[in-house]
């Protein structure tokens, strides 16, 4: 992001940007930046808190008044924790990861979870008057089915002529997560982003599907599929849960 500031300023446009990883901003040295101490994915700090967001935005705008740079200011206010930080004591209305039969396939388990989550997803969608599900252009059962086909010996063909199978894998993966996370938001008690992630990755068959897809892609010869496996399916903050210890970004032999 900071690099965009350099490019635009060299074309005569003043910029002010949020800094999320302060170390990176210190290295890139963009003209004007405001470091914010918020969870990645929430540069304005808190959803549905207009006053908080406005304070953050005004602090960013204030860097435009600085006479010289580079400017790297620190936003002093932490985001309130908001919602429960864990699942303890939470009445989860769905019972996940309990196979109806011992021989239930991973795909069948995910489809069973989807059926349980559907009313909660519908409620959240109605309440918010929006959904972020749908980038893949498939319905939710189609999303689950397409992802499950990646565990077959031969990867599936893309159901969309304008998207490669690998691109569709990524879009479908994000759609499946969007469905689950939005369904959880339909419940009475909100969760933090991290708590919702821990629920998804720790409790659902969908997460087990993602872990299997990761292994499947990494084992491929195709470097694009390996890249998806290493980078784009299971978030780093959940690797320990799945026993992932690799550091692919480091050259072999380094620590």
């Amino acid at each position: 992001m900071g690099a965009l500031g350099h490019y635009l300023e060299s074309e005569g446009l003043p910029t002010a940007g949020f800094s999320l990883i302060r170390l990176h901003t210190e290295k890139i040295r963009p003209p004007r930046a405001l470091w914010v101490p918020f969870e990645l994915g929430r540069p304005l700090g808190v959803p549905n808190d207009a006053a908080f967001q406005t304070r953050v935005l005004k602090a960013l705008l204030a860097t435009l008044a600085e006479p010289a740079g580079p400017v790297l200011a620190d936003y002093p206010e932490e985001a309130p924790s908001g919602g429960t930080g864990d699942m303890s004591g939470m009445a989860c209305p769905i019972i996940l990861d309990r196979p109806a039969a011992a021989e239930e396939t991973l795909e069948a388990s995910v489809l069973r979870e989807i059926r349980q989550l559907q009313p909660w997803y519908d409620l959240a969608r109605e309440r918010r008057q929006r959904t972020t599900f749908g980038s893949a252009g498939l319905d939710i059962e189609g999303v689950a089915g397409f992802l499950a086909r990646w565990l077959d010996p031969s990867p599936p063909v893309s159901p969309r002529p304008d998207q490669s199978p690998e691109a569709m894998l990524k879009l479908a993966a994000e759609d499946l997560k969007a469905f689950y996370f939005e369904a959880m938001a339909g419940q009475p008690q909100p969760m933090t982003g991290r708590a919702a992630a821990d629920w998804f990755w720790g409790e659902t068959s969908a997460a087990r599907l993602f872990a299997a897809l990761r292994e499947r892609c990494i084992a491929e010869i195709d470097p694009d599929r390996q890249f998806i496996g290493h980078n784009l399916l299971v978030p780093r903050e959940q690797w320990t849960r799945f026993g992932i210890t690799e550091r692919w970004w480091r050259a072999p032999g380094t620590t």
Partner: protein
Amino acid sequence: MARLTDFDDIGRDYYQSMAMPSFATLRWAPAKPVHQSRIAMISTAGLQRRGDRPFAVDSADYRLLPGDVRAADLVMSHISTNFDRTGFQEDHNVVFPIDRLNELAADGVIGSVASIHYSFMGATPPAKLEATARALAGLLKQDRVDAVLLVPV
């Protein structure tokens, strides 16, 4: 919680190991007073209007976000799985604060809001965005934009 100490060893090692571009000289464009400025936003959250082309690995192009885009039409196709999306699902303003910006314009804190904003996909190496970003500067000037807010995710 985006302090390095907030990540586990894996995340900390990843962010500390990331190669960053270096810029030998600082290019500095003087800014007008904010209350006289027309402001645009550039997001790198991989935002797009529903039905627009999704971003992909190494996408170096941008998507248009009209100032009157409806929240229900905003979706995200950023390739990374390493950031929270529940905030955006709850309220688009936590990633793309268009409502806040319009309020600041109505209150006279800023001069006005650009008619079009832009979105890149931030996992693309910055150098691949340079040509597009420089061309984008011309479009922003055509919209009489005085300053740009850069909003990563």
